[in-house]
């Protein structure tokens, strides 16, 4: 709803719910999307919501991922491995299955095919190619979904429709599950030097002849600066309190918040608004004096690019490590699929583990591990 609004009527900006510059000057906002009617009104077909538990009952949303959330292959792979190692456990408990995720994903994607396409729309997965770090997941998922894995050069646009080259001639593509970032999907609309995209793809998309999942410009809803406004955004559109709370967050763009943050750096976690993968962040309690001072200078130089949060006592899970079984901090990323017929949540999720003792950084790019996660019927 927020995305439809910022690319449409812009009511929540006009109402002052979100500061103008966080929308209009957000690098992930795509002005080109304004006025584009996305098929079935769905922007975020696949979302990954990072959730943490900080005490017995309180769950917090740590981060939203609305661009191209990854990690589903680890979720499915983790289940398969655990099932092989401990098959008897799965017999003794009613564990909700996750292995139908690829089927659910395909049916979600089919449901959002542009109106007027055939009953059996063609879905394809667009990957940047084998040099991308998530290529394994792309090929794994495409295989499980039974759809073709394509690169930009396998597709072309003719008369505002997208086709893939096949040995039997061109075949029209109706839905593209794209794992290529906005910047690179079409050199005629975005970065002109992109070799990964399809020239004319955005034109076909704007004409309503192909569905892109996720839509272009969804990053405008998931960055860490917008995150701090999410509770207000939820209230504005739904007139309801959000069920899942946000982690209390200081916006460093606000002078009052900034001075608090500068005074309490050693106890806070400070993150870059547009950072991801656990880069460019400071975990106060685990940093040296020098690291903190270094960060203080960066924070002062461009406060608006940072947010700060209290260092949360993330819940831990027993984990096998070199020294035996020990507690390690975890977070949980469930995947939410949204199609033309509503929402589905995978009964499970990607549980990420910070493998270093005491560490709170769970990102796989920082050496994090994963765990199988059960939703058990009692």
């Amino acid at each position: 709803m927020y995305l439809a609004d910022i690319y449409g009527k812009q009511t929540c900006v006009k109402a002052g719910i979100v500061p103008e510059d966080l929308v209009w000057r957000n690098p992930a906002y795509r002005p080109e999307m304004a006025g584009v009617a996305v098929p079935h009104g769905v922007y975020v077909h696949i979302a990954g919501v990072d959730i943490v538990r900080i005490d017995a009952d309180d769950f917090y949303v740590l981060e939203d991922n609305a661009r191209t959330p990854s990690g589903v292959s680890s979720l499915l792979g983790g289940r398969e491995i655990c099932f092989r190692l401990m098959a008897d456990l799965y017999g003794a408990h009613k564990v909700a299955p996750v292995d139908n995720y690829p089927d659910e994903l395909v049916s979600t994607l089919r449901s959002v095919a542009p109106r007027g396409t055939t009953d059996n729309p063609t879905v394809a997965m667009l990957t940047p190619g084998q040099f991308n770090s998530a290529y394994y997941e792309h090929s794994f998922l495409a295989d499980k979904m039974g759809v073709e894995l394509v690169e930009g050069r396998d597709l072309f646009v003719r008369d505002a429709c997208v086709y893939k080259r096949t040995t039997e001639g061109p075949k029209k593509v109706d839905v593209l599950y794209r794992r290529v970032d906005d910047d690179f999907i079409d050199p005629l609309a975005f970065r002109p030097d992109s070799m990964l995209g399809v020239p004319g793809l955005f034109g076909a998309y704007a004409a309503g002849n192909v569905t892109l999942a996720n839509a272009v410009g969804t990053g405008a809803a998931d960055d860490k600066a917008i995150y701090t406004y999410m509770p207000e955004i939820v209230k504005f559109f739904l007139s309801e309190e959000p069920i899942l709370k946000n982690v209390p967050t200081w916006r460093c763009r606000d002078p009052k918040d900034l001075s608090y943050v500068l005074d309490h750096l050693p106890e806070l976690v400070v993150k870059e608004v547009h950072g991801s993968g656990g880069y460019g962040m400071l975990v106060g309690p685990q940093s040296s004096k020098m690291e903190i001072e270094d960060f203080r200078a960066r924070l002062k130089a461009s406060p608006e690019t940072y947010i700060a949060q209290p260092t949360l006592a993330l819940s831990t899970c027993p984990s096998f490590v070199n020294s035996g079984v020990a507690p390690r901090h975890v977070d949980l990323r469930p995947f939410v699929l949204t199609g033309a017929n509503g929402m589905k949540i995978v009964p499970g999720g990607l549980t990420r583990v910070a493998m270093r003792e005491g560490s709170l950084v769970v990102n796989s790019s920082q050496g994090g591990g994963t765990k199988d996660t059960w939703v058990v019927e009692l």
Partner: protein
Amino acid sequence: MRIRIQHRTAYIYEEPAAAIIQVLRLTPRNHEGQRIRYWRIDMDQDVQMQSGEDAFGNVVHNICFTRPLDDLTVTVQGEVETHETHGVVKGTMERFPPGLYLRETPLTQSDVALRKFARDRAGKGAVLDQLHKLMEAIHREMEFNTKPTDVETPAAKAFELRSGVCQDFSHIFIAAARSLDIPARYVGGYMLRTDGQIRQEAGHAWAEAYAPDIGWIGFDPANNLCPSLTHVRVSAGLDYLGAAPVRGSHQGGTAERLETTIMVEHIGAQHQQQQQR
């Protein structure tokens, strides 16, 4: 003033291109300062054009060829009647609030030197005053030279070289204005030359900036004036890329060669000359 425009672009391929796809922003729209008398785009090859409108209100045509072509000529011609508005642009399609036009793009990113230049030259006056000072300073301190820059040169680089073409002048103006928190955008179009020269090598570009209480105002830093009767506004965007007359890609084929001829003439003037004879 009545202005007639003819803009021919020929693409010549040494080896035929297997497929060509282009996005054209070559069609002006009416606003208070201009009325389109007629306008047409012709291709010398058979093709279907899909037309639409982009987020910035530009008329967009998409064309694609999926058969091999040795060459392609796109001819745009039309007649526009312009009215004096003293640079103020009213009656355009606006989807965004001015604040959007504070966005930096790779081509309009400012650096320390450019920001300092903007602060020093613009002074502390009213926005309109600042913008005029900025335009004058860019016109004065930049040298017009087609050699050192190309369509991919970002504002900061052209500023460092202190030379460039109207595209660079405009990017510098936009980057400088945005660094002062003044919304600014890029405009592509045509300009009638006052020296009587009809044939031109390239289209023209200028900028528009937003002043509270007035609205959008055109600034042409290459000519140090606010566009009026002589300027025909065709497309607008955050930078050259967003307003580019043609963005295209071709598959196969080698050595794309481009030949552009543009003719911009004042129709009334011609009539007067004929009458005098």
